[in-house]
């Protein structure tokens, strides 16, 4: 069974990726942009096309995830999201460098009280059937998403009080000022469909979906393999470059790489870190790592007395050598973990000191706890994720000198998830993720015990000061003031250690040397309209 795809089929709210953002003028109104965004753009590793794009051809993309259905409002698993986001587009998207980029909207204006946002629709956008995009389509689509109580991401729209069409503009009225709103609007779940499914029934519509995206799917057969065809009415004239993209489901990682090497596939996802070295030596293959908004974390169950003890958590943080961990289990592909927030995320502050590896400090810290001689505990992992099982063994060895005996429990992914969500664990390894560009997602979900919805990612870490800062930052619109609030949060959690940040893993893709212009955004999404074959 393939391993990494298990991870990907979890919760995934992923904002769409888009290459070639330079071609589209960034709205000057963009308020969340900052100097650090520019440096992040410079850091983006890959997908840089060389030469003049050539038109035509087909690319086969062998993916480790399978689509099951294509409704943006009801999707959360990676196979669904990464398929429907080729067909449907939102008003804004997240670029490969992680910046919000105008897409079906050309920009927006915000009222002084941050309670009214007016988005200006891009002129000349048509759905794949040729019907022009109207403001009423946007109103209908986002209202549909808001009203869907089973919508995995409909909570993101909670701040919206109402939406109105005004000529070529769409006016959002918010119940309260909400800083993450701009990012929320860019999520795939807020993608635009033709109002009333273009006159079809809901079921019939998703069997032959119509969107504004670069690709169209003539008929959805609920099949794991499908072929996307270029949308001749796409609003970015001349794109997509390819005639079609065949998306195949190949769950076995070995088979994926064999297909790439034999030429049966040109792009594969989820390359395991252990295969990176051998692929790098293959001259017909390009290996690309894309920065992600992800952090692999060790979570403590603070409902247990020993993990309630801050000294114990601090001792463990000191005892885990993340540099060694990254070298051994991530094969040098990932950056060693420091703080919870990945450095690729805006407002992550790399200057905040964290508890770095020191066995002597670990011992001193444990001596101050109620458990100076250690204790026995369990570490839960998702079976099949090779990297995590190696992490677990390294952690087990690192904690031994403290007298902390760790027994590793490995469960299949669904069982693992149910188990930690019932708080039936001591420690577990998972990853924290931001799928939209606003840091609030990770801050509230992982740290805000009061409002985050998961009791600080099922850790039960409850620091009212942190909850208050997270809330304050949600209604703060000055970049520098928001930065100060998030820096303060990071200082507190660096000392409190609700989680140990293990590493910041990249997305690793392998492509044929002929593939140009392939890029993935830090949320994990890619749209492929800029891909061409040399």
């Amino acid at each position, binding site marked *: *069974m393939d391993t990494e795809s*298990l991870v990907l*089929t*979890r*919760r*995934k*709210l992923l904002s769409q990726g888009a290459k070639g953002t330079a071609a589209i003028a960034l709205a000057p109104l963009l308020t969340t942009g900052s100097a650090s965004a520019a440096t992040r753009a410079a850091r983006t590793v890959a997908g840089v096309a060389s030469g003049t794009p050539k038109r035509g051809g087909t690319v086969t993309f*062998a993916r480790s995830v*399978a689509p*099951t*259905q294509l409704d943006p409002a*009801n999707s*959360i*698993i990676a196979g669904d999201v990464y398929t429907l986001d080729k067909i449907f587009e939102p008003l804004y998207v997240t670029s490969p460098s992680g910046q919000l980029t105008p897409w079906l909207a050309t920009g927006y204006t915000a009222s002084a009280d941050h309670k009214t946002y007016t988005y200006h629709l891009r002129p000349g956008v048509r759905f794949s059937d040729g019907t022009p995009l109207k403001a009423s389509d946007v109103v209908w689509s986002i209202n549909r998403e808001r009203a869907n*109580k*089973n919508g*995995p*991401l409909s*909570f993101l729209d909670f701040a919206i009080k109402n939406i109105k069409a005004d000529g070529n503009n769409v006016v959002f009225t918010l119940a309260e000022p909400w800083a993450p709103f701009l990012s929320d609007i860019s999520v795939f779940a807020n993608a635009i469909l033709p109002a009333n499914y273009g006159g079809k029934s809901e079921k019939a519509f998703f069997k032959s979906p119509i969107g504004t995206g670069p690709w169209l799917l003539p008929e959805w*057969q*609920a*099949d*794991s*393999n499908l072929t996307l065809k270029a949308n001749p009415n796409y609003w970015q004239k001349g794109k997509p470059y390819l005639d079609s993209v065949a998306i*195949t*489901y*190949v*769950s*076995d990682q*070995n*088979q994926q790489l*064999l*297909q790439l*090497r*034999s030429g*049966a596939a040109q792009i594969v996802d989820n390359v395991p870190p252990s295969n990176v070295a051998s692929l790098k030596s293959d001259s017909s293959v390009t290996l690309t790592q894309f920065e992600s908004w992800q952090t692999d974390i060790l979570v403590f169950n603070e409902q247990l007395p020993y993990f309630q003890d801050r000294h114990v958590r601090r001792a463990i943080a000191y005892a885990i050598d993340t540099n060694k961990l990254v070298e051994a289990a991530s094969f040098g592909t990932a950056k060693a973990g420091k703080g919870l927030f990945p450095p690729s995320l805006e407002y992550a502050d790399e200057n905040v000191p964290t508890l770095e590896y020191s066995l002597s400090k670990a011992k001193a810290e444990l001596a101050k706890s109620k458990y100076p001689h250690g204790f026995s505990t369990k570490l839960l992992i998702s079976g099949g994720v090779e990297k995590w099982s190696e992490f677990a063994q390294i952690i087990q060895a690192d904690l031994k000198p403290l007298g902390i005996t760790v027994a590793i429990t490995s*469960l*299949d*992914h*669904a*069982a693992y*998830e*149910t*188990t930690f*969500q019932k708080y039936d664990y001591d420690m577990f390894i998972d990853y924290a993720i931001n799928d939209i560009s606003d840091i609030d997602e990770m801050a509230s*979900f992982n740290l805000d015990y009061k409002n985050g*919805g*998961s009791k600080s990612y099922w850790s039960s870490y409850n620091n009212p000061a942190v909850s208050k800062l997270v809330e304050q930052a949600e209604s703060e619109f000055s970049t520098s003031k928001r930065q100060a609030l998030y820096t303060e949060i990071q200082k507190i959690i660096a000392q409190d250690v609700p989680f140990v940040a293990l590493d910041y893993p990249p997305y690793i893709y392998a492509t044929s040397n002929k593939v140009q212009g392939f890029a993935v955004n830090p949320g994990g999404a890619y749209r492929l309209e800029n891909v061409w074959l040399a």
Partner: protein
Amino acid sequence: MSKRVALNVYRSYTGRRLAAAVLVTIGVAIAAFILLHVVPGDPARAVLGEHATPSAVDALRRQWGLSQSLPAQFGHFIADLVRGRLGSSYFYHEPVLTLIGQRIGETAWLVLGASILAVAISLPLATLAASRQDRLSDHLIRGVGVIGLGMPAFWVGIVLIEVFAIHIKLLPVGGWGDTLWQHIEGLLLPSLTAALAIIPILIRSLRAGMLEVLDSDFVASARARGLSETRVLFVHVMRNAIIPTIALLGLNIAFLVGSTVVVEQVFALNGVGALLLDSITNRDYPVVQGLTLVMATAVVLINLVTDLVSARLDPRIRLR
């Protein structure tokens, strides 16, 4: 035994086999249901995502009937089954039978291809081994067979891909392709992989059967009549040995159907084996239950047909 008595014996045998087949199928359905629901995991969480509120998760579980007691859920499952309903997938929102119908083709062709290859390879090798009893070729055929038994299908598959798809570049590394020719090409290696797992078993029993036949009086008389050894072997011995081979293949069909789960994975075929694995991962209960039932029924039916055909051909079996 008069003809009439023989027919009655055959009918009663058929009746007993049919009853056993029905019982086995029901047993599999119950086992699949219980195992699936006892293992932790929540499809509602998977569909709704981590951000879902507990009340949204509960609502979806209620909608799917998962909040009821296990016996009540089982009652609904059986009641639906009796009415011929297998329910709809939680993920695909499609009827389970539609999904199975879409994917069963690749798996059925794989099982058929493996069966044909298994017989086509076992028969000549077993004949050779039997005719050269205790000589080098006999030891080689049996020895390699034993080693073959010890190799897991996923590993055999990888080796075959390395040899035939990467080095010789004769066949595709995997996938189903779009044209009939691509389907045939694509099926060769997976069929061979699945076949290799049962070929040693077939060779061993086929060889034993042939040796038994070789010892019998009619062979001695055929030889005495001056027939060539080749003719004795291929006309008289093989004909008698092929019946137990087919029977044995029938009995191993369950193993073959089971191995498609692994083989499909290794060769990127999207048949029911792959669907089963994904549905287990996702805890898509209706699909897993439906598929288990369909696979069990297929296996039971094939076994039943094998039993009945064997009994028809060899009257001794009916009396057991």
